[in-house]
């Protein structure tokens, strides 16, 4: 595999730099010195000239793991330990010394992302998000809440395809207006029928579609939206201290999902112009996208998993906005208990109300 490991060393003490979500810069966890991302990038470029060292681990990985295995082996440049990971991994940490490493080969050439939204929220924020997510839910088993042991909190830059496009649409609706009146003998209902024709266009920017096979598409959509005003040009330095994968679902495979969402949004926008009618039913909808542009981006996601009664529960938090999602189990006993309480109370109140109505 033609890949290289990129690490960011502190120019001050030689420690491994990590991306600082609060300051939006690089920070040394050992001497607390902070550096500008651009400066660290220049340093990284400088370090990347050391071709011979990189050549060594390439040969080693090719000997032990084939591409078909879907795995790759690298050697940590800090401690020499062997890093075994999936071949889509773009950033991880050394299992021996814990130093963050970035595999540049998975982030260069065609695999180089166009954009990245840096993490704004750290691991503690993710843990707090989980606490909030579990609170105030009366049907959540107490044991799950009390004994909840999160296996791991992973900050991951998830690969996404971003679709920009202009959507031209022509939609025809059948609409009706209704009027009622009566005379001494009959009730009348008059229905006026119309054909509504709407043509126009609508533009979309950065419609995201999950580009990772192993990340659940619905989970990734649940933590939307992202604010792409805060997206920046990709620099590997942002990945330091986080996990990252390269895409393994290409943009072509992702297009149908983007088309589906764009079409529905376009239809909704056009439907909003059909006011003043009793009923409006679409008869024919034609949506065509033009000037389509696809970009590759890495977006920040905090992932947490836990197991309960043999079932795996995955939680995700938007690393930019803090939106937290994750399905939770239901306490069946609590479900029936609350049902019985509400049922008894409401039935008694209804009985009393019926009696009062009878008295009146």
């Amino acid at each position, binding site marked *: 595999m033609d890949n290289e490991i990129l690490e960011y060393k502190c120019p001050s003490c030689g420690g491994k730099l990590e991306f600082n979500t609060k300051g939006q810069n690089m920070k040394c966890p050992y001497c607390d010195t902070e550096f500008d991302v651009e400066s660290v990038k220049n340093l990284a470029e400088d370090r990347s000239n050391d071709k011979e060292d990189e050549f060594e681990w390439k040969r080693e990985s090719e000997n032990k793991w084939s591409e078909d295995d879907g795995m790759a082996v690298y050697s940590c440049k800090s401690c020499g330990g062997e890093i075994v990971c999936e071949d889509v991994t773009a950033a991880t940490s050394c299992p021996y010394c814990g130093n963050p490493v970035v595999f540049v080969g998975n982030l260069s050439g065609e695999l180089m992302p166009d954009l990245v939204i840096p993490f704004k929220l750290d691991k503690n924020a993710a843990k707090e998000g989980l606490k909030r997510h579990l609170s105030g839910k009366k049907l959540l088993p107490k044991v799950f809440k009390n004994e909840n042991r999160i296996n791991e909190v992973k900050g991951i830059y998830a690969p996404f395809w971003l679709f920009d496009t*202009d959507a031209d649409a022509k939609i025809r609706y059948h609409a009706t207006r209704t009027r009622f009146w009566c005379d001494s003998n009959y009730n009348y209902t008059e*229905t006026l029928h119309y054909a509504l024709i709407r043509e126009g*266009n609508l533009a979309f920017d950065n419609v995201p579609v999950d580009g990772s096979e192993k990340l659940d*598409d619905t989970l990734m959509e649940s933590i939307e939206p992202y604010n792409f005003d805060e997206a920046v040009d990709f620099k590997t330095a942002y990945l330091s201290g986080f996990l990252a994968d390269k895409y393994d679902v290409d943009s072509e495979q992702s297009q149908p999902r983007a088309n589906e969402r764009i079409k529905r949004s376009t239809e909704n926008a056009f439907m909003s112009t059909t006011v003043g009618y009793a009923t409006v039913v679409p008869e024919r909808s034609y949506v065509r996208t033009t000037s389509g542009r696809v970009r590759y981006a890495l977006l920040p996601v905090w992932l947490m998993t836990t197991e309960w009664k043999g079932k795996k529960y995955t939680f995700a938090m938007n690393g930019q906005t803090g939106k937290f999602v994750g399905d939770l189990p239901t306490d069946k006993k609590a479900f029936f208990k609350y049902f019985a309480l509400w*049922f008894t*109370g409401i039935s008694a109140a209804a009985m009393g109300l019926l009696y009062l109505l009878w008295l009146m």
Partner: protein
Amino acid sequence: MKKTIIITAFAVILSLLMPIISFASPDMPPYPVVDEADVLSDYEEDQIANKLIALFKEHKMHFAIVIINDLGAETPYSYADSYYHNNGFGYGKDKSGILLLLAMSSRDCYIYTYGEAERKFGNSELTELEEAMLPYFGEDEFYNGFMAYAGACDSVLSFDILGSLLIAVLIGAVISLIIVFSMKSKLKSVRPQKTASNYVRSGSFTLTKDLDLYLYRTIVRTRRAETNSGSRGSGGGSRGGGRGGKF
């Protein structure tokens, strides 16, 4: 939790006790049975009167039965109306009561209602009374007919505990199911995005064609429901409600 249980239990007990809260025995209105046509034996008349008096005590309105031979020149409504008011029928400030008039020669049967009774005995209730008694009157079984009429009056005015309980249980089941399923839905937060509306470029929506074409119209005509003429009398001096027919 305990507080909720106590409040709930109190509400249940209160709602069940309300129908049997006692009330003071009211002053008696005129004797409830007038049998000028002599279709009832003395014993039957007493039995019916006792039943009607019991109804009066329970429901605080006057229940009367008047059986005459002939209406003369009057309509059943005007006869019943005059009889009711000229003989001091009714109970309470609004003179509430229900009078069943039978004219034997013309076989007219009229239920006259006044005051609170007029409101309590609407069309559906009057139908209930008619369905209970008219089959007996048709066979000249007047005692049974009057007893069935009294029973139907009691049924109409009594609080239908079983029926109400069924309705209350249904309401309770439906609302509580909505509540607990709404609580359950809070446990699910992983949902796909149906649209891309968050990513619409601001101000980009433009309509190049916006046409509303009128095509045609349809008119549906349905006959109006007949207004029931029996709910209120139409004779001179009309004051009460009711309706009647032949038996």
